[in-house]
């Protein structure tokens, strides 16, 4: 009898202890259970569906015109993905932090023009450094306005976009500037086992941003601040500093994007970045970010870029009229934004 009593007591103890709790609540506790759950997580579903849609578009377009899979088109697509991808990563970081940045198009134009102008006069290294410096300064001004002057980020970056656009137009005019020396020729046409260097630069940025968001404390803080500003303030996170750093990163990535664009197409004019901010936000949102913040990944942003660029290339192949293309791009952007907000409103 006594053994039975002890045995039942041990069973109850087992039931109420930690492992029992986990099993009762069906929370994955062992490694096997965790691996099973990864494949059901929301992000993985999103990545797989994005890759699926890209695959579907590829299959359909290849039947339409077999040059879609040709080397030239794929290389073009890869270069476009690199150019839009680096700015989509920055946009994703800002969106995760809960803010929005509308001035990146103007920043790209300005930094690119600085780069092209300085290359002829001062050499490549000084040009790159000054381009980066300009981007970081513009990012810090955006951060200052949003964080210190407490201007809502949408209006602050909108106003900054107007100001930077004006500064660009006045300093550099409306002419197109060419880099006649072909300084970056080796970067432009070089490949590493068939992959263009430009795409490798994008991969480096992607790995860096992924590491930042997943493995550095700053990354966790960005997610926290985007998720709930008040809660993270109560946790002791310096919300202002995190948001400021987010904007600075965005500025730096915008100048890096202008560098990539300059390497790719050796020319720059004041209107290069005109629609870029909305495309970057569209890519980040398609990849999982929401406008309220706290959600999203950079890998998702890159997959969103892949999807969007594939669609744009498909539009060109289908021979869509240029103004209808513009309207369609705007509609896709708005559809992505509306769908992402709707998911959040249900939560």
């Amino acid at each position, binding site marked *: 009898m006594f053994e039975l009593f002890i045995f039942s007591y041990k069973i109850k103890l087992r039931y109420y202890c930690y492992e029992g709790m986990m099993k009762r609540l069906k929370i994955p506790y062992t490694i096997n259970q965790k691996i099973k759950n990864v494949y059901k997580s929301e992000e993985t579903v999103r990545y797989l569906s994005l890759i699926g849609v890209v695959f579907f578009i590829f299959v359909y377009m290849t039947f339409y015109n077999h040059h879609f899979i040709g080397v030239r088109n794929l290389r073009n697509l890869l270069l476009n993905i690199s150019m839009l991808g680096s700015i989509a990563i920055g946009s994703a970081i800002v969106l995760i932090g809960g803010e929005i940045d509308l001035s990146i198009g103007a920043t790209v134009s300005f930094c690119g023009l600085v780069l092209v102008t300085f290359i002829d006069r001062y050499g490549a290294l000084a040009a790159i450094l000054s381009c980066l410096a300009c981007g970081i300064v513009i990012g810090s001004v955006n951060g200052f306005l949003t964080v210190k002057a407490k201007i809502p980020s949408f*209006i602050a970056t909108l106003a900054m976009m107007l100001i930077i656009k004006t500064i660009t137009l006045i300093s550099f005019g409306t002419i197109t500037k060419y880099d006649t020396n072909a300084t970056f020729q080796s970067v432009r046409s070089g490949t590493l086992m068939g992959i263009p260097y430009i795409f490798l630069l994008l991969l480096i940025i992607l790995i860096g941003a992924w590491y930042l968001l997943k493995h550095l404390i700053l990354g966790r803080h960005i997610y926290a601040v985007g998720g709930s500003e008040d809660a993270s303030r109560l946790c002791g996170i310096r919300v202002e500093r995190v948001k400021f750093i987010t904007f600075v990163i965005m500025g730096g990535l915008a100048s890096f994007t202008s560098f990539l664009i300059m390497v790719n197409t050796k020319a720059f004019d004041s209107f290069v970045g005109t629609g870029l901010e909305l495309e970057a936000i569209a890519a980040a949102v398609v990849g999982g970010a929401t406008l309220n913040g706290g959600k999203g990944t950079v890998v998702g942003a890159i997959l969103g870029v892949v999807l969007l660029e594939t669609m744009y290339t498909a539009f060109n192949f289908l021979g869509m009229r240029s103004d209808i293309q513009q309207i369609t791009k705007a509609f896709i952007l708005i559809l992505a934004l509306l769908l992402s907000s709707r998911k959040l409103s249900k939560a």
Partner: protein
Amino acid sequence: MRRNYTLKIWLIFIFMVIVFTIIKPVFISPRNLIHLLTQISFKGILALGMTFIIICGEIDLSVGAILCISGIVIVSLQKTGAPLFVPVLAGLGVGVIIGFINGMLVAKKHLPSFIVTLATMTAIRGFALLYTEGYPISCSDSTFISLGKAKFIGIPVYCYIFVIVAIVYHFLLSSTTFGRKTYAVGSNIESAKFSGINVDRVKIELFALMGFTAALSGLLYSARLASIAPTNGQLYEIDVIAMVVIGGVSIHGGSGTILQTIPGILIFASLTNILTLNNVNPFYYYMVKGLVIIIALILQGGIKWKFRDYRFLSLFKSNHVDNVSGGKSSNE
């Protein structure tokens, strides 16, 4: 600072007028004043409607597009030869319907108003471009054209309409329950809900009012020019937001009056006017608008100068947990 803000803004405006007259005496000439009053009327009517929306904490980017499409509807329906009130009512109705759609999406679906109005703006511009195929439409009805050119004591009729709208909207905002509800929803939406205010209905009515206002401005615009182009009214949204914000209406919502917006309208219009008179490079207009918005918002909110975060490098520490048991995490 908030209490005597109206007085301060009016003083700033008077000071600006004096300075501008000293710089360019042409500023006070009747011809320039009529030109100034025209700008004030068209964008001012939009700004008066926008005041409601910003007090409520939302934003409306589709005002220029609604202006354009209502003008297109009015001018196209003129050609059918119907009596004048049919196109006018149709144009105003289109504005109300689009505002209603905006309000439904914002209130019922809880979508951010920035996105919704951006979507509406893009859609309407697309429709306008597809319908007109890029060319302006002109109007041939003589009554309509004479209404556009009518003057009463030398001042065009639309300026009087602007004054009438200002008086009506001021009454609406300050002395009706609709206005009080707008303030309540803008200040604290949760307590408004708990006070029994139907927040959804307030927002829908607000956006419908804005749509009506934009359509009214479109009516006056197309009457004055006797034609409409699909690119009219582009970038009016930024001007209108700047006008409201200069006037001291808080961008986060909950405070502000029409009497604060009117000097904002006047200041912004005079600023643009003096730039035109000085033959300033048109590129500078963007910068002036952006700077004015930023300065107005900084003056509204002030700058927090305390910045005592000096442990910067601690952010770049790794996120991994050091030892498994106990769950000690290496954050600050």
